[in-house]
């Protein structure tokens, strides 16, 4: 379906396809990196970067609301909670 109305935000369809393909590959690699990192503290940082990549992918899918949600939740709140849990577990193991 071709676009009949050109808005100020329209980019050529080929460029958007390339951007989405690159971001999809980066997200797949990021998911693999999150799973293969075994040390928990390091994995939290990788998870935060993965949340950022996901937010960029959602932006390329024309979903700004979901981008806002994923950015704040996946890159800030979840890593903070995980780090607090890790701190609690480590302080008991000492």
């Amino acid at each position, binding site marked *: 379906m071709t676009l009949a109305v050109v808005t100020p935000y329209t980019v050529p369809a080929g460029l958007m396809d390339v951007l989405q393909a690159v971001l999809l590959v980066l997200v797949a690699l990021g998911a693999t990196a999150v799973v293969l990192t075994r040390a928990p503290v390091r994995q939290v940082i990788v998870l935060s970067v993965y949340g950022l990549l996901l937010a960029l992918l959602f932006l390329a899918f024309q979903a700004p*609301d979901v981008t*806002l*949600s994923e950015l*704040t939740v996946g890159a800030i*709140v979840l890593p903070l*909670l995980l780090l*607090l849990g890790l*701190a609690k577990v480590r302080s*008991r193991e000492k």
Partner: protein
Amino acid sequence: MTPGLRRWVFLAGMAGLAAFYLWGLHGLPGFGRYPGPYGDLINRIAVSQTNATGVVSAVNFEYRGFDTLGEEFILFAAATGVATVLRRLRGEREGSAEDEAAGRDVPPTSDAVRQVALLLTGPALVMGWYLASHAQTSPSGGFQGGVVLATAFILIYLAGQFLAFERFSPVDVTDAVEAVGAGGFAAIGLAGVAMGLSFLTNFLGLGTIPGAVSSSGTIALISFFVGMEVAAAFVLIVSEMLDQALLLRATGPGGRSR
């Protein structure tokens, strides 16, 4: 079952699952060729029916408001669950924040972190408030605004100490705000019932300009209450985890703390 055997059993099962999943996804109309009538219908009629230019928020709080009420109660129950599971068990004592702060030797927070966190707290508050109150105009809404508001409180903890964070968000006040947020949403729905209409009808005036802050009736009001509830739920969860990590100390045999 040894780990190696478990890995091979998983790979066999996952191969079958992936094959079925891809076969099912192959039957979809392909990426980028959205055919369905529902999305186009909502895009066409939402602005004229509700005077809200943010169609996603109109779907969330108006066309699909009952499901959003259910999801908000999931959030409420999860926050209550965290507060219940992380309660003080038998055999633990909770030190006060001042006592625990005196006996710890942690490296002081670096100046760069403190200054940046201080600078960002005010804009984060304003941004969260803006997002929670503009659900019907632009990409915003109660859920995002609530999480950004909670982030502002977390920045207070990062910029200062746990004592400051505890003073700014006492547990009783946070509990009350969360309850008001969740109850307010349900109360708006019940107000519709009290007027003789069905639950969660948009009974306020729709306004004249599509996309203005005062337009679209109950959508803006519901988004405000949802923002309050989400912010309070996340602040409660973070403060419970901070209490666990910093305050609760186990008492070993004989009452000595470990």
